[in-house]
């Protein structure tokens, strides 16, 4: 018996990776909270160490907070950016649900913005504003939808890969915008002047009105898309196609048609975001106007695992992070925008890698695990005691 256990140890690998049972939602949330905490801890340490200014952790978190909520203006910008990101994320959700990887959000936003600008440029002031606005929405969202439908058509009829196709269309959209600007201002610096007439109405004064308008439009779209996905027959079809195209064909869903229509919807909503950007916020168009939301939206969808109810909270957190990091960047005296990306990337890294631990357990060799238990059991017991006490209090 003795020899057996000894040989067993010798052959036992040090760590084994074992698949976990599905964790309850509550526990998974804690995993992510801890990941964000560690992500912030590591990034803040890095930032403090590399900053030329004398700053501490308090300053870091204060800056993070003030980036989003530091002033009234910042708050409304936060609301506006959150709304736009939510809009893009929700636009991409239906196509992602059916495994149509639309990476062309940026391009679709740009096309929407561009067409809205064209409408303002040529017809602004020449017709009643409400007519202009409706025209703007219809033309821009349809144009953006075409931008998404082209790859969809190629996918369903010629089996081309839609990820590359949509991605490449982004660059074509950028070049089109560039062309338009140089067409209008052949001698200019490549930037476009703002258009004074025909802008969309806002719901109040200044930044607040703009933010509220964005928020309202996006909320309506979000609710509609979620209802479509969760409760409608077409949404059910989308889910079936995403899970198994073979099953979809087996029950007689017209997969080609549904794919094209869903891509149309996705592009059209991106187009609406484009209209908000050019018609409401900037009154102009530029090649960088999309602010890469087409890609950030993909992040939002993936992090929320395509769960409609998680999209808004995740979009909120990501906007918060972006705004906060931007503020840290200025306050800590980093000249380069690259630091911005490095910091956000690091935090994303923590959040994404924790997914692994929600699915797998790392188990050490049994004897080591026993040794570790000596250390960890008092700690877990301590926490257990705290939590159970809390529960008792709640009961009282």
């Amino acid at each position, binding site marked *: 018996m003795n020899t057996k256990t000894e*040989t067993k140890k010798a052959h036992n690998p040090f760590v084994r990776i074992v698949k976990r*049972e599905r964790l309850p939602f509550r526990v998974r949330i804690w995993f992510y909270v801890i990941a964000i905490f560690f992500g912030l801890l590591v990034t803040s340490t890095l930032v403090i160490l590399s900053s030329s200014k004398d700053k501490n952790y308090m300053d870091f978190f204060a800056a993070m907070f003030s980036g989003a909520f530091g002033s009234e203006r910042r708050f409304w910008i936060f609301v506006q950016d959150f709304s736009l990101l939510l809009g893009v994320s929700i636009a991409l959700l239906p196509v992602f649900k059916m495994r149509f990887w639309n990476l062309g959000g940026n391009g679709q936003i740009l096309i929407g913005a561009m067409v809205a600008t064209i409408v303002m440029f040529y017809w602004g002031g020449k017709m009643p504003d409400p007519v202009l606005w409706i025209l703007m929405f219809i033309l821009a969202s349809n144009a953006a939808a075409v931008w998404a439908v082209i790859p969809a058509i190629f996918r369903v009829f010629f089996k081309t890969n839609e990820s590359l196709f949509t991605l490449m269309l982004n660059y074509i959209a950028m070049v089109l915008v560039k062309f338009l600007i140089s067409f209008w201002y052949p001698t200019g610096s490549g930037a476009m002047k703002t258009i004074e007439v025909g802008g969309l109405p806002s719901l109040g004064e200044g930044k607040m009105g703009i933010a509220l308008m964005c928020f309202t439009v996006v909320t309506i779209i979000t609710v509609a898309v979620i209802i479509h996905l969760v409760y409608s027959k077409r949404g059910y079809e989308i889910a079936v196609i995403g899970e*198994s195209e*073979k099953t979809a064909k*087996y*029950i*007689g869903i*017209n997969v080609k048609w549904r794919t094209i229509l869903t891509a149309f919807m996705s592009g059209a909503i991106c187009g609406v975001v484009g209209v908000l950007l050019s018609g409401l916020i900037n009154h102009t168009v530029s090649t960088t106007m999309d602010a890469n939301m087409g890609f950030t939206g993909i992040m939002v969808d993936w992090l929320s695992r395509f769960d409609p109810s998680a999209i808004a909270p995740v979009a909120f957190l990501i906007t918060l992070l972006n705004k906060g990091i931007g503020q840290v960047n200025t306050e800590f005296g980093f000249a380069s925008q690259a630091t911005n990306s490095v910091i956000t990337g690091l935090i994303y890294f923590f959040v994404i890698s924790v997914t692994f631990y929600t699915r797998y357990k790392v188990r050490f060799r049994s004897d080591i695990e026993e040794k570790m238990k000596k250390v960890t059991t008092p700690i877990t017991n301590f926490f257990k005691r705290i939590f159970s006490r809390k529960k008792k209090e709640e009961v009282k």
Partner: protein
Amino acid sequence: MPEREVSLELVSITKRFGQVVANNKVSMKLYKGEILSLLGENGSGKTTLMNMISGIYFPDEGHIKIDGQEVVIRSPLDAFKHKIGMIHQHFKLIDVFTAAQNIILGNKGEKYQIKKINEKVREIASRYGFDIDPKKKVFDMSVSEKQTVEIIKALYRGANILILDEPTAVLTPQETEKLFSVIRKMKADGKSIIIITHKLNEVLAISDRVAILRKGEYIGDVETKNADIPLLTEMMVGEKVELNIHREEPKKTKERLRVTHLSIKDINGIQKIKDVSFSAYSGEILGIAGIAGAGQKELLEAIAGLQHYEKGSVIYIDPKTEKEENLKEKNPRQIREMGVRLSFVPEDRLGMGLVGNMNLVDNVLLRSYEKGRSPFLDKHNPKELTNKIVEELQIATESVNVPVRTLSGGNVQKVLVGREIAASPKLLMTAYPVRGLDINSSYLIYDLLNKQKEKGTAVIFVGEDLDVLIALCDRIMVLSSGECTGIVDARSIKKEELGMLMVKSNDDLKNTAPHVLVDGLLNQNNEETEAGYEY
């Protein structure tokens, strides 16, 4: 009995996959020069256990002894070192290589001298009575030839312990007999052989001893000479099982489906079904037999409106109005809208019949979600229907809201069959409906099909177990390389005769070619190689 030499010993092996315990403290012995059958239902942990011996998995607990020595097997390479060879259910060969090239693949330390290798392969083949040409390329081979290559590969490396995972599942009765004679020769040569199987009569025919696994636990072993089918079934299932299929004479048969001169070519222009004509009658079960890939799938999918075909016609005869409906160029939805009551249980349950990640209700909904004019889903009626199906078919699930893929194979199939039958079909097509199911579930499915027959449904049953086909069906149509080689009376046909029809060709001139054709098509993973065929 004299003390025998132990060749392989497993000591308290445990393997878990998450919550699932695939093997729980399994201890067993394999003696030298013995053929051991490892018997157990699907999911009882046979393959997992063998995969640990051949180095694909590593046990969570316990260890393996070979010739009394404890060994560590971390990889297939380690397994080779200990002279263990495993022949997997799905062959792992490179299609564009010859037999000999495949055999020496991964053999380090040996010079690549193909002539010598060919010689050695021939030598091994003649010693055990294999029939193989070492220079033949794998894509030109039939399934049984591929299996031969796999076995020789193991022998070439000097394997003393051979593990065969369901070797007969893909063979005709004749080929099985041949394989068994080879195995007996290997045994005479002092090799130890483990055969994984769940076909009881084969167990009795080939093995010396039977070891039984049930739900990951080692139940025990019996000398084959002391065993019979009822005993083995009882050990396998854990309770006595009635193994009779009740078959009534067909009553009031009427033509329900008429297929005439149907020919199907796939995307690559390869003929899958060639001029097949038959009728299915109400109140009757029509069996379809054939080697895997003989065109069964294409035939059923063509009838269901999932497969395009140029020649021939599929006519459904409405039982009430006697109106003939042509189903050509119609998709499943159009067929439904025409009022054709056709249900189809496809071979690929989770890939085609159901959506694995959706729950039971959403899966039952698949068939009826379009009902009503509202743009929104009605989940209330499907939920009631699901509860009814779960109750009537005794589906083991904690609730109707769990994803279907979390259910066991048998229960998944019950959901699918239950849904299709709930649509009260007049024509029910089932492709391999009991594949991978335990004995109890299998008999429940046979029972359901019989009930449908009684109700006057025309049932089409594509099966692989010839014993079952003969016991369950009224007539059997045999497909061989996409051709119909006979429609026979199931009550009078013998298994061997069916086996003959399965490899026969209608065209004498092409006596050998279609054989190549069928087997090449079996290899669905390697579509590129199919270009190599000439017609």
